[in-house]
């Protein structure tokens, strides 16, 4: 993401409340927060960072519809067209007449598609799919520390002192290569 001439400052925090307050202060100054790394979800952080609301619900709905369609075409193809079977004296001539028997399949595949594809969407959208290079600038954020990446648009020194004031325990210029 980082263009070559953009300087990014890392601020490390050891408390989620301090981090949240810091995020708010930085945003009030009109500075751009590139990313925040945290070992656990911090309540209200997404709002404070001004992140857009997730659209994964819409994706999940689409995946569910896809699963439902798959289940309908699968039962139709297998049990009506290809190999009609008379199970328990139930009519197998039309899909509609046998529909109640297919409802569990429709339900399960809807849930299966929605759940699994949603997980993979989440992985790819957040670049944490298997084989992906770790983006984390500081391994301590997987334990008990929080890290905020701020894009420096002007005086880097001033930004660093501001971040110190917000309660950061370490502030440094990010030299890591960003994907």
């Amino acid at each position: 993401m980082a263009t070559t001439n953009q300087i990014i400052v890392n601020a490390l925090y050891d408390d989620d409340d301090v981090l949240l307050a810091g995020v708010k202060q930085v945003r009030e100054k009109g500075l751009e927060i590139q990313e925040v790394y945290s070992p656990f979800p911090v309540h209200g952080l997404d709002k404070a960072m001004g992140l857009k609301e997730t659209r994964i619900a819409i994706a999940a709905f689409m995946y569910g519809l896809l699963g439902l369609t798959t289940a309908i075409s699968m039962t139709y193809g297998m049990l009506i067209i290809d190999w009609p079977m008379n199970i328990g004296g139930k009519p197998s001539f039309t899909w509609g007449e046998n529909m109640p028997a297919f409802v569990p399949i429709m339900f399960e595949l809807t849930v299966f598609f929605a759940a699994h594809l949603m997980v993979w969407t989440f992985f790819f959208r957040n670049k944490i799919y298997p084989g992906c290079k770790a983006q984390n600038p500081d391994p301590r954020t997987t334990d008990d520390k929080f890290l905020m990446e701020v894009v420096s648009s002007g005086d880097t020194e001033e930004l660093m002192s501001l971040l110190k004031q917000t309660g950061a325990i370490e502030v440094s210029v990010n030299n890591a290569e960003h994907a």
Partner: protein
Amino acid sequence: MFEFSSRLKTISYVLILIGAISVGFSFLAGGSDHHDEASHGEGEHATTEAHHSPAASHAHGHDAMPKTDDFSYHKGASRAIPKNNHFYTSPNAEHDAEHAHHQEQNKPWANLLVNSFFALAIGLGALFFMALQYAAQVGWTVVLLRVLEGITSFIWVPGLVILIIIVTGWFHLGGNHVYHWMAEGIMIPGSENYDSIIAGKEGYLNGPFFTIRSIIYLAGWIGAAFLLRKMSLKMEQSGVDYNQNWAKMRNVGAGFLVFFAVTSSMSAWDWIMSIDTHWFSTLFGWYVFSTIFVSSLTALMMVVLYLKGKGYLPEVNKSHIHDIAKFMFAFSIFWTYLWFSQYMLIWYSNIPEEVTYYMMRFDEYKVLFFTMVALNFIFPVTILMSRDSKRNRGFIFTAGIIILFGHWLDIFIMIMPGSVGASGSVTLINMGTLLGFVGLFILVVFNTIKKAPLMIKNHPMFVESKHFHI
């Protein structure tokens, strides 16, 4: 403190009056029907004959596959065992005529049972939900507890009506034959009413035991509601150890949940499933519970929305509303899951003694049956699916009305076919009685709500609930 406005009080009185007129009229109309019982009986017989003939017609076509999707085929199959199918068929026309006469007489009683059970469901579900909040020491619902207490105070009203229906049925008063197994001589061998299958259930289904059971259920529920209310009011007094009081309420709540687990299922078998005495479903208790729970959560939502609209409950924020709406959405799906599980197993196994239950509903109640499924599943799911609609009063209110009416219709479909037969349909009398119970609900619930502050400020979880945010 909530003030019961005189306008709302007037509305509730008017609704109660409408209900009283409807009930009174239903009993008067039921009485006048005695005169044409003979002709009615014949008519009923003719229709059963008409159903009979297609069953015979399939017999000659041995070369062709039987049309198994034809309901009359199943009817024919089940008629092969007359004693299994006592209710819908019988060898003599006189017996049929008697049934038809009873079914006509049952109408006012069945109407009362439908409405009082629906009303009871709302109070009982709220009590379950409230006990759950204490047993699990839930934080977010504290701002709703006083509203729940108000709703639970309503249980005794429909409970009393149900007891009246049971006792009049036991002593054959007022033409009450809602419970077919209470018929005279039905368990006495040699009697013309004798039914061997029903007689086999005598150990469980008999007047005294049935009445005692019903009294135990109601006493337990009303007692638990009273106890939780009393302990909750203790939170308003000074010099009380609030934490200890809360811990004690946890025990009461947990104890009640055990009692409720047993009695909710048993009351469903007793009061509703025993109407179709031959038929049974092991899922029935859960199925009725899902109706109870989703109706009461919806009623809770409606009361909360009303109070918020009047400027009360400022502590109830969007997150609380969102979470109750999630409950409405989730338990609508839960209801559908149980409804379908019961339906599909019976449809698939196609055992005559089981499948008659759904044939009655398919043949005679088709429109209501499918309307009910649409109202209870398709509407709530589509309306309440998105996050935004769960936070929008208009959407929630629309979904709430649909869910409440849908579950009223669900109870209607559970009770009517077995008690009044094929002639049941939603009439103005049913709607009027429903309005009467709504009036009683408003009167009793808001009278309780106004007696105590709307917020339990000394509840240990109050602050957490006030700051609830999702």
